[in-house]
């Protein structure tokens, strides 16, 4: 069990080391190594998920230090699901990068940085200790800083400064919260924090010190997730790095913030949900609305998609605001579906950029006439994001809104539906501008020579892979929904985690 839990962390870390040691000028070697590491990561994640279906929640103490000392890895269904999706997105991005990333970026250790990022993300999903979570956050943040500014353009430096300052501040808040939690409550393990708080604070209490710590931690996670009103760093920076990097960021980094939000609220501070849930409700609604209005107003394809990330993050925060098992399950389902769909949309935006040479919607056009199959490929994640059946987004939105109706949050459910409509409008905007309208400048066959289109096949392959996942989730939603429901039920009963610790302590 120890090896199984640690493998999804170690494989990308050791792989990144191997990629650093291998000469970065040998592009084929780097690509081959990366694909092998990605496949191994997927296998490890699948085995870990299979283990959680057999044995529920497990706590792995690293270095055989007994609980609550030492660093613990918390492996529950939610963590295993997220690690699985991380491995899938990692492999897909690596395959996409084979065709999309320029050789001078590869020479600057792009593939090693990618694996460091995946290691940080996997570690953050498996962390069972507040300070260990901070360290994994910093690992993935550091890798994301370097990946963001890898091309050394002026726009990237500017975006990097904005991204770095705000994320540094969020990390400082997180560190302050973790330090104060240790000072106030006396422990850092998340399960132990939750257990001690449950003893000292019954249902419906509000100790100011603990509320302050909760506020610090949740604000830090909210900045990372990109919720209203602290999301401005996201559309300011996500449109500058290479398209493969943006796809990875969009799929994974904000979801780490959402994961930490869910984890902290259900495991550490469940007794304060009467304060946290209404705040999440209001913030989720504001995030949805401002995100989608921002998307409607943009003319750069990656900026439109960046604002969509924010709008969909609002849905996931709204799920936390409803505070019920079915709502949390809907939130988990939404997170998983959204990771796949968002990454796919950014991959397709990269393909469009390669085919038309521009990212401004005004300068594009005529793609439907020239590449009708690309238009079909774009429609799959676009309609899924908008919530059109029978794709995965429909079931994600349906379960979330029905959970809202169950909890009598009628206004919130109505706003969620309206925002879905506006999301659909902004997707049709991309469709009209990029695919449907006639091209302004006729791109003839000799205009785009085979050299510049080299690698599009590999990029298309990775996008098709994710589109197939979206369609499969849409056709068989029960598989993912059952997994998400089990995960949500686990998270809503913190006693299971304490029991798992006692099981782990047995010799």
């Amino acid at each position, binding site marked *: 069990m120890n090896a199984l839990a640690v493998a999804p962390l170690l494989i990308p870390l050791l792989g990144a080391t191997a990629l650093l040691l291998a000469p970065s000028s040998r592009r084929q070697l780097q690509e081959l190594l990366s694909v092998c590491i990605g496949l191994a990561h997927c296998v490890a994640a699948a085995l870990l998920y299979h283990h959680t279906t057999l044995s529920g929640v497990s706590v792995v103490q690293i270095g055989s230090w007994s609980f609550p000392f030492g660093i613990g890895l918390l492996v529950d269904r939610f963590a295993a699901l997220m690690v699985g999706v991380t491995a899938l997105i990692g492999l897909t991005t690596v395959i996409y990068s084979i065709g999309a990333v320029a050789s001078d970026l590869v020479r600057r250790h792009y593939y090693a940085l990618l694996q460091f990022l995946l290691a940080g993300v996997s570690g953050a999903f498996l962390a069972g200790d507040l300070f260990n979570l901070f360290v994994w956050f910093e690992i993935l943040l550091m890798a994301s*800083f370097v990946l963001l500014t890898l091309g050394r353009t002026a726009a990237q430096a500017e975006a990097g400064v904005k991204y770095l300052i705000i994320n540094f501040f969020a990390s400082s808040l997180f560190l302050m919260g973790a330090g104060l939690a240790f000072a106030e409550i006396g422990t850092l393990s998340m399960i132990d924090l939750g257990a001690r708080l449950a003893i000292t604070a019954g249902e419906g209490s509000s100790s100011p010190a603990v509320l302050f710590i909760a506020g610090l931690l949740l604000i830090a996670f909210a900045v990372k997730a990109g919720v209203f009103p602290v999301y401005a760093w996201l559309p300011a920076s996500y449109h500058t790095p290479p398209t493969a990097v943006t796809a990875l960021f969009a799929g994974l980094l904000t979801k780490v913030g959402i994961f930490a939000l869910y984890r902290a609220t259900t495991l550490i501070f469940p007794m304060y949900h009467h304060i946290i849930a209404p705040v999440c409700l209001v913030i989720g609604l504001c995030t949805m609305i401002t995100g989608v209005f921002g998307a409607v107003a943009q003319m750069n394809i990656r900026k439109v998609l960046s604002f969509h990330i924010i709008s969909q993050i609002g849905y996931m925060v709204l799920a936390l605001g409803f505070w019920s098992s079915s709502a949390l399950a809907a939130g988990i389902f939404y997170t998983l579906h959204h990771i796949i769909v968002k990454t796919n949309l950014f991959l397709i935006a990269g393909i469009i950029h390669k085919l038309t040479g521009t990212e401004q919607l005004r300068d594009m056009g005529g793609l439907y006439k020239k590449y009708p199959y690309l238009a079909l490929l774009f429609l799959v994640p676009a309609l899924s994001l908008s919530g059109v059946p029978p794709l995965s987004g429909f079931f994600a939105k349906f379960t979330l809104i029905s959970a809202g109706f169950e909890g009598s949050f009628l206004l919130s459910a109505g706003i969620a539906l309206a925002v879905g409509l506006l999301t659909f409008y902004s997707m049709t905007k991309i469709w009209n501008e990029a695919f449907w309208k006639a091209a302004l400048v006729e791109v003839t066959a000799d205009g785009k020579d085979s050299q510049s289109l080299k690698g599009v096949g590999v990029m298309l392959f990775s996008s098709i892979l994710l589109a197939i996942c979206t369609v499969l989730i849409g056709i068989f939603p029960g598989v993912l929904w059952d997994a998400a429901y089990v995960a949500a039920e686990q998270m809503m009963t913190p006693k299971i985690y304490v029991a798992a610790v006692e099981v782990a302590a047995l010799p």
Partner: protein
Amino acid sequence: MNILLILVTGLLCACGVFLMLRRSAIRVLLGMMILSNAINLIIFVGAGTTPAIPPIIPADQSTLATAAAEPLSQALILTAIVIGFALFAFMMALLMRHCDHHNCDDLDLMTEELQ
């Protein structure tokens, strides 16, 4: 002693945030450094600063004395210092790149070109 330390950390936090909101890139850098130091001090103060027994278990006992100093917060601070140092180094390189491009360290020049 404790209350003085707490006031100092609060003051340092305020200075750090104030500097991070300034226009000059150098001041932002300094603000980042002061803020990370302030938060490390918060962890330090949170562990308690009363005189205490060193956290070493004597040879004839198996657990730490209850009045011993808290060693875990020192480990947290060390990790945080290292991470902050790496962030600071990268931020410095990034701001230098920005300053090279604009030939001065005015962060207000960082307005994106309108599309």
